[in-house]
């Protein structure tokens, strides 16, 4: 299998899974959605592991940059979002007079934990990768 064929197979698999997920959400068949997601993960990882040498290095470099870019945008956004939702400014608002602001506060808490999880995950993966690709201090 060459790179072109590999990309075509990957794209077909992704489109097929997206269509199944879309249809199952419209039909409210949530079990089918879960099956489709797991099948997609298994199928794509199977295609990926069998064609590891076919992944273009330029594409890998783009993926790295895109991941870095996504993290540097997503982490502050979700962090600031959490902070804004946790500030009790909504309690005085007429719109939230019936106490609905509590839902926003819960959402803020979830966002705050997600931000922490994201930062911890990034730090842990950074630490392991730095250890894997770096030399030790006493190494000659």
């Amino acid at each position, binding site marked *: 299998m*060459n*790179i*072109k064929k590999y*990309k075509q197979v990957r794209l077909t698999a992704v489109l097929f899974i997206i269509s199944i997920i879309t249809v199952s959400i419209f039909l409210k068949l949530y079990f089918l959605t879960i099956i489709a997601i797991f099948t997609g993960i298994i199928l794509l990882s199977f295609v990926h592991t069998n064609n590891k*040498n*076919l992944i*273009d*290095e*330029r*594409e890998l*470099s783009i993926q790295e940059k895109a991941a870095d870019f996504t993290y540097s945008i997503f982490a502050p956004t979700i962090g600031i979002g959490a902070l804004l939702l946790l500030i009790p400014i909504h309690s005085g608002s007429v719109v939230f007079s019936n106490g609905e602001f509590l839902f926003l506060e819960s959402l803020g808490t979830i966002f705050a934990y997600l931000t922490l999880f994201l930062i911890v995950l990034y730090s842990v993966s950074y630490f392991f990768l730095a250890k894997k690709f770096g030399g030790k201090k006493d190494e000659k």
Partner: protein
Amino acid sequence: MKNKLKIYRVTKNLTQEQLADKIGVSRQTIIAIESNRYLPSITLAFKIANFFKVNIEDIFIYQQEKN
């Protein structure tokens, strides 16, 4: 970094697609290297040089960055 990849490819009468297939990268990578938009890894640079049976520095020319 400058490179003479296009010159070597044309000399061998190869299309970008053919060269990409022979080296094992995508055509987009060859386009990006030829137009100096992507700097290949040392492995890929060696692969390219080996394919054309020349030294790396014959294809890739290092230019010191101006401060």
